[in-house]
């Protein structure tokens, strides 16, 4: 009885051992050393070949691409609009520098690219006209966008960008898109979302992205390109403090989309500002 029952256990044990290493035919996990070598060799060659094929096709594909402009640019035919400081909601106490330091540091870092020392090679262009350099040699020239154009929001005179007085500066930036030529000159218009009255100051005063900064020729061709900015200084009064203010800035006066259903950031940007005293 017992021997009968023991048998299968023994068998299964030995079959496990046999599976790992079978001394009778020298099989290791079901295959002989030779067979393992062959199969590994096969996979080595096979995967080597696949990797080679993949690299080759990728290389060929990359050869078909241009170094300066992407092959297709239809996904981003319209630019998005973003603000600096980069935050969906700006909350600070105007009398607590530690609370807005984050924002002002961010603005300072962002604007440092526009310092004069970085723009020594940039040229002064003719305002109101596209700066077309299609046939110019590389690298393309860059139009100067002086930080001082941002006036009170340049951070030169007021290093707290108005945050300390509770009238914060927001910088509106339009996404870079190669070859984009807005027509006619677009300008930024910021409004409060609810019926709140909101008065703002724009810098430059006409709130435009001047045509001379367009078109953009791409990172490689247009090294050191500075994109035009519009700074918005929210002129908040004491009645506006301590409550959440919804602001929406739109790009207007041009052919650029600002009311796309799906993309809420195409030609417009919404953000909230809460300033406490």
């Amino acid at each position, binding site marked *: 009885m017992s021997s009968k029952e023991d048998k299968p256990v023994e068998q299964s044990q030995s079959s496990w051992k046999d599976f790992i290493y079978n001394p009778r035919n020298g099989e290791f996990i079901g295959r002989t050393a030779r067979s393992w070598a062959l199969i590994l060799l096969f996979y080595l060659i096979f995967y080597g070949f*696949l990797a080679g094929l993949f690299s080759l096709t990728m290389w060929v594909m990359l050869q078909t*691409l241009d170094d300066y402009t992407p092959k297709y640019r239809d996904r981003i035919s319209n630019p998005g609009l973003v603000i600096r400081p980069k*935050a969906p909601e700006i909350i600070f106490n105007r009398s607590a520098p530690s609370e807005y330091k984050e924002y002002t540091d961010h603005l300072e870092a962002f604007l440092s690219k526009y310092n004069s020392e970085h723009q020594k090679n940039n040229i002064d262009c003719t305002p109101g006209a596209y700066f077309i350099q299609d046939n110019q040699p590389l690298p393309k020239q860059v139009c100067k966008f002086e930080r001082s154009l941002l006036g009170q929001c340049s951070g030169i005179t007021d290093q707290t960008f108005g945050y300390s007085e509770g009238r914060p500066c927001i910088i509106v930036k339009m996404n870079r898109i190669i070859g984009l030529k807005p027509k006619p000159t677009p300008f930024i218009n910021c409004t409060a979302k609810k019926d709140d009255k909101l008065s703002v100051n724009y810098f430059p005063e006409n709130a435009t992205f001047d045509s001379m900064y367009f078109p953009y020729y791409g990172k490689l061709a247009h090294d050191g390109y500075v994109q035009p900015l519009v700074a918005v200084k929210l002129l908040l009064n004491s009645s506006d403090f301590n409550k959440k203010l919804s602001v929406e800035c739109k790009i207007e006066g041009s052919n650029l989309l600002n009311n796309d259903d799906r993309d809420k950031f195409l030609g417009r940007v919404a953000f909230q500002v809460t300033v406490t005293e």
Partner: protein
Amino acid sequence: MISGFSLLLWAGAVLCWIAYGVQVSQAPDVPRDNLYLGVVLAGVVILTGCFAYFQEAKSTNIMASFRNMVPQQALVWRDGEKKQILASELVVGDLVEIKGGDRIPADVRVISAQGCKVDNSSLTGESEPQSRSPELTHENPLETKNIGFYSTTCLEGTATGLVISTGDQTIIGRIACLASGVGDEKTPIAVEIEHFVHIVGGFACSVGVIFFVISLGMGYKIMDAIVFLIGIIVANVPEGLIATVTVSLSLTAKRMAKKNCLVKNLEAVETLGSTSIICSDKTGTLTQNRMTVAHLWFDNEIVSADTSEDQKNQSFDQSSVTWKHLSRIVALCNRAEFLAKQEDVPIMKRAVMGDASETALLKFSEVVYGNVMAYREKNKKVCEIPFNSTNKFQLSIHETDDPHDKRFLLVMKGAPERILDRCSTVMLNGKEVPLDDSFKETFQTAYMELGGMGERVLGFCHLLLPEDEFPDSYPFDVESMNFPTSNLCFAGLLSMIDPPRSTVPDAVSKCRSAGIKVIMVTGDHPITAQAIAKSVGIISEGSETVDEIARRLNIPISQVNKKDARAAVVNGMQLKDMTDSDLDEILRNHGEIVFARTSPQQKLVIVEGCQRMGAIVAVTGDGVNDSPALKKANIGIAMGIAGSDAAKNAADMILMDDNFASIVTGVEEGRLIFDNLKKAISYTLTKNIAELCPFLIYIIVSCPLPIGTITILFIDLGTDIIPSVSLAYEKGETDIMNRKPRHPKRDRLVNWQLALYSYSQIGMIQSVGAFFCYFTVLAQQGFLPARLINIRVSWEDKNDQDLEDSYGQEWTYEQRRYQESECYTAFFVSIVISQLADLIIRKTRMNSIFQQGMLRNKVLLFGLASQLIIAAFLSYCPGMYDALRFCPLRIPVLVCVFTLCHTNLDL
């Protein structure tokens, strides 16, 4: 719905909901992707579950039609009057009356009977009607004549009986209980699918868990890791597979039903294909189930007659005068008659009143003579003595149709030796010559030869009564036999057999080349059984039994090396005394086995013996008492015409035409479905790698997700379903009936070879192709491959509206999202297109694609087209982006995808 893949999918769905719940608690305005995905996954499980259920229900419905029997009535004496009540209301002690044609309503003890005969064939397998009378003739209730059994039929006469047991207590009831007691074993295909689920499920789980841990280790949040886990599970589980399997099985079941095999249990379809032993009945399955004249002996010569199913005339030499006389006796000395109004029915199919051998003779003479009934009309019968067991002959006296000959003709047929005893002359070549000893010897040889072929032999003789002794008005009297019954003239012998169906020998040889052993199990006499076995090829030409070897070599049986004998004929009596190991030895040592004189109970023993050898056994049966064997067998096959309801209930399959050849077509279909399922599974598995890799790359490289989980579901449940079902329509490959039955342990549906081939070879090629598309789509829009590394966090950050690409352009979140769905679509399309090529690869296993023919499987072509159409619809139909995140691809991308995948796969 709660096993295998379904469990994994449930897990995925629950994880989705948990993930969504956590997301909502963190930020209320998260997209509901996870919620929807969970719902979709649960929906998939429920849908496939319902689908499988309805398919099963459909085939169960066919069965239900069998059960719609009129409730049985019984005529019973109650309160001093006869009443008609339902058989189910009978109680022990009731007095019931039975008449010819009734089914006996319970087990009864006969207390009075008038010429009562019952058909016990469904219970004991005896095909002859049994007479019932009040006397106890045997101790064994099954043998004694005074018990009538529940569900057997009373053929003729009347009887009164006392109910001794009802319902489950009856003999039949007990057998039915026994049948239900024999455990239902899992069908091989169920085992295979389970095995497959283990492999794939194990792979999915281990990869999922490994990457869950890796992603946690790489610093991903638990939430992200759960989302990855869901992705990996969804990518790995072949969601559409169960539906494919069910559809394929029911398609095959339908196809088999057309070929007269009705499959009750869908999974049994495949079981038949893996069958390695068929235990077949003889009567009705291998044979035509009707006596037919097979040989004649006259003028010292044996002539064989045509025994096929649709004979119209006999081709042997009919010019001899002896034959004219013999045929006249055959036609006249016969009481059987055709039933009315069957003139346009083929002779062999006409219904006849009379016993089996008389029917055979009637049909035989109808074939050679034309209208026998008219012929008998012209040769009027004046007197007759029917056959009885004491005389062992049948005699009749006729007027002749010769107007110039007023003599009466006396014709007689019966047991050959008895007939010969009554003869003094013999007709040879038309002349009457005295019967001498040398003739007796030739007669004996002929008789032995015919008998040795397992045939039932009858002798025929006649005499023209002299006109002077027996004038027109002679009063023939049967009681006093006032006419000569000896010194007759012997005319010849006729032998009859229940001939094999004409399709059977071919079917048996097909079985043989397919490596299937056919064992005959019959209640018949060994000699008959052996003769039939030889004529259908179950015992092949040149094979000998131990007895035959002994006779040939003239040595005692004990000296014969049993291994020399390929064939064996085992008698039921021998079987009774055998131990299991004796039986095993016989089954192992002999390739060709016939079990004769077996009781249906012994069938069970034989089946168990075969199963002990590891064989997958198919058993045919018709009687009630076959049901335990049918149940025990891996696949029980009941006869549709001759089968009893109990047998049909116990069986997995019903043979509508009772023909053995249909089993063989069934085997072919079963093998085909296994092959085709294998093809479908390897087809389905291939893309799993291409669906899984994106997640792994996504986790490791942290690039934008190449393909979304919903998109994966669209491949698994959308584009891939029709093609994988279409593989079920693939014709068999050339070797399908020339290879051994699959070994249940070794030849698995999914083995490492298949998994490795699908996963690590074709799957990798697909992935490489798909990734190429992914990189191409992104690179052409400005994100070169190098830029993609580690971009995931900012790519998926909704607050990052100015992500810079390789060319210095800035993208909003929504623009990236649209780009991502283009990646999904490109990845999707490239998988779909490489699956097109994969489908063509999977079309064949052994044959080359040219042998198999590209255009023969129209459904497969439709499948190819459907894939393209669905893919095109998903990517080009407006609004798909909002609904499912598919977006249109550029034609050049498509062309690039197409060529790349195909060059890859055609390697």
